[in-house]
């Protein structure tokens, strides 16, 4: 699997290259700026791109804008955006086109190689991966008493959180140590309680949940 990396800090860039190569990815290009990134995407046609939000020359949200630009140029280009901070505002912008194949994770998640590379693979496969912190804040925001969320059981809420992070039924089952059938029952109940259209497509399901939470 071919990856393009955009990260301005040398140590982190180097670390990312080594980590991804250790897990069998092929790093097509590793660049330090937004403009270079778009050029590398054009030239390399990677399967997935990993981009830091803050890049030179502005050191603001250059990376996010470059990622969105690259996706406009190469529709459906899988992009995983890394950041020192997660902002719901940015998550919304990444999700806005509804095409999926996006990820938004805290840089800390790189520390767990297994989980991080799993996230890269899921994004490359067209999935949506949201950082647990984004989800936690979305859930907190919806915690008010009259929200339909209060009708969910604690277990269903747990499943909803994992689902919103972008995990498949199988992954949720493995995480909660239950059968996939049990997870499927929970998700069906959640969709019924929240008045959402059930869907077999994992990614469409994630987007529906995120849209619901982000209303």
């Amino acid at each position, binding site marked *: 699997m071919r990856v393009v990396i955009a990260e301005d800090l040398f140590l982190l860039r180097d670390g990312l290259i080594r980590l991804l190569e250790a897990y069998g990815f092929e790093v097509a290009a590793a660049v330090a700026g937004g403009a270079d990134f778009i050029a590398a995407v054009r030239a390399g046609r990677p399967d997935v791109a990993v981009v830091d939000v*803050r890049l030179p020359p502005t050191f*603001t*949200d250059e990376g996010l804008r470059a990622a969105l630009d690259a996706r406009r140029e190469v529709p459906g280009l899988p992009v995983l955006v890394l950041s*020192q*901070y997660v*902002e*719901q*505002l*940015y998550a*919304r912008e990444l999700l806005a086109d509804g095409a999926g194949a996006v990820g938004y994770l805290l*840089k*800390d998640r790189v*520390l*767990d190689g297994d989980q991080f590379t799993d996230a890269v693979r899921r994004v490359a496969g067209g999935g949506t991966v949201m950082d647990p912190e984004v989800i936690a*804040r979305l859930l*907190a*925001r919806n*915690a*008010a008493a009259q929200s339909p969320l209060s009708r969910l059981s604690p277990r269903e809420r747990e499943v909803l959180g994992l689902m919103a992070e972008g995990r498949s039924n199988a992954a949720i089952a493995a995480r909660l140590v239950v059968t996939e059938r049990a997870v499927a029952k929970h998700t069906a109940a959640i969709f019924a309680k929240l008045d959402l259209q059930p869907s077999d497509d994992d990614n469409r399901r994630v987007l529906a949940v995120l849209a619901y939470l*982000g209303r």
Partner: protein
Amino acid sequence: MTTAASRPAVRGPGMRRGVGGGLLALARAVGFVGPLLAGAALLAAVAGPPALTALGLGRLIGNLVSHGIGTGNDTPRDLLAALIGVGCCRFVLPAALLAIRRLAMLTRHLSARWCGVPVASAYAPRPAGPGRLGYQQRMSWLLGDEGTWRDLAWLAVNAAAGPVLLLVPATLAGTGVVAFLIPALGSLAPFSGLQRLVPPPPFPGNTPLVLAIIGLAFAALGLWSGPWLLRGYGGLARLVLAPSGQAELELRVRHLAQTRRETLDTGAAELRRIERDLHDGAQARLVAMGLTLDAAGRLIDTDPAAARALLIEARDASAKALAELRDLVRGIHPPVLADRGLADALRALALDSPLRVRVTGSLDGRPPAPVESAAYFAVSELLANVAKHAGAHAAEVDMRHSSGNLRISVSDDGAGGADPRRGTGLRGVERRLAAFDGVLAVSSPAGGPTVVTMEVPCALS
């Protein structure tokens, strides 16, 4: 001295022409008589006690000098007068001076509303400090203020010139009406008594027609001159009551010194907090991580399993340190604010709030960074207040920039009754904005809705 306040009055929108405008001016002029009388009474209350004291003491001393101790018959009376005078100075004077100040503020208000002549005010702020002021502090605050003396001068000027300016038009108009009506009414039987009561003026040719013409002329003169004299009255008030440029500058300097001190204090406290957070948080975790890694290094050959557990522990500690640093940075300068500016930062804030927050309005540029930051934290504090205290379900943040002012309002559908003097939160926001000459206005009637509006003068870039 030429100041903004003492510029000659020009005809403004406050002045209406015609009979209606004339009548309105007459009514307003008569309305000014109330404050005038109250002012005269207060002037007596202020001037009386010192005068009484001086009179009593003067007579006592005069007696002493000319006759020796205990000889004058009037000694007890003079002594009593002096004591009453001193007592009044002690207890009546401060209250009377403050009442005069309120009266002067009322006059300024009415001058703007009724005469179309706005009059600025500049009083020294009440000395800071908890609790009631002592007599000495109070008097030195009041008497050391140029504004107090302006108020007193106004009372004197008003008592002397006010009646002329205020009552001449009304008297003219009144005389005119009487001259017009009396002969006319006199011809009607039921009112014939009036003619005996107010006999027609004894001059040749005083037919009802002549009287009516004279009456009309008087009334017209009164109605015509009413608005002008009212405006003149406002101008006089401005001449006496408006602060001098020097007084305004002194107040400005005092305000700047105070806000600068508060800003520095806040900054220093903030730095101490950051230092403490780093020391107790990320720094401590990094030390612990170093120790764990060191232990893992020693164990790696003899007990690889234990070393592995320690390495995982070190990784978790680094994640916690990162999380703490993240929170710290968010509190110093939120990343979205740096990335996108105030408008998007407020939208991000709204998304993070547990309430449903709608963000409306927009900005065509970015305010200076310190203003952005102050406004951001102010809105953050206000939204946190709403979530904590107001019992609200929804809030709205509106921002706009017009005529050199950044204006942001935060409203909620909660219970209302927010008092800026009770909560330290609102006071802190106010202090933070004051450093930029910003102001905060709170409207929170019981039952809601609460609207807090902040305004900071600044340019967008």
